[in-house]
């Protein structure tokens, strides 16, 4: 987390935006990476979530993506809203 000063300054893991580390859309990515040797490099994923994505996840997820090999990931929440991330940012 030292690589990302914009979130490193927040001491408590339960505070915004670090609370996103405990959210389902964030935990599913390292869980998937763990099953594939810690990296999802070059992969394309589609993640379905049964709630709406929060602001904390919007900030944290692109950084988590970079740490697991920078896969291209599209998230779709239960309303049908889609967001795609890659290279540490949201493409759409």
């Amino acid at each position, binding site marked *: 987390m030292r690589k990302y000063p914009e979130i490193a300054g927040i001491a408590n893991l339960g505070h915004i935006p670090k609370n996103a580390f*405990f*959210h389902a859309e964030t935990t*599913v990515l390292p869980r998937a990476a763990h099953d594939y040797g810690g990296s999802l490099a070059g992969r394309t994923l589609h993640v379905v979530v049964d709630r709406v994505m929060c602001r904390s996840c919007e900030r944290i997820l692109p950084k988590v993506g970079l740490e697991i090999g920078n896969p291209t990931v599209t998230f779709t929440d239960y309303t049908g809203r889609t967001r795609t991330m890659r290279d540490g940012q949201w493409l759409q």
Partner: protein
Amino acid sequence: MLFASAFGRSLRPPDDVDESARSQADLEASRRAVMLAHRLALLDIGAQHFRRYGSHYNPNQPRVPAGHPDGGQWARDGSRAGVQLAAGEKGGGSGWAFIIGALLKLGLELIKEKRKGKILQDLFGSDEGTVAWTRIDDNDIFGYNSDRPNILRKIVLMPRRCAGPS
């Protein structure tokens, strides 16, 4: 020389602007290329899912759009205000909407099945928390909101500590 000194500076900015605009256009084109490749990959993912599970997705079924209290829910008929056909949802074309809609419905059904295993339900059987689903190489992978994100800690937060010699 006089011409250059008189007009050189005034001519340079438009060149810079052109170059900047060209760079922006190149960036936008590469972004679109990435998105196109990503959508094609998602089409492939969708095809794999449908081969395994089949699809009950019906692009002609009405759906309540986002912004409504029950946004995202399937509607029995399209007579209610704001209800639109699933295939007409945002996303840049009916093909894209079809794939996303079908993947969404499949994912929500799998999440619902997963929740039935008493995961993230309160004492009264109501859903609580959030579940996320993805699929890689025929493996269903679920994520939950958790107070102990151990795998996250292992992969992202403290990779060095865990990557030592075994």
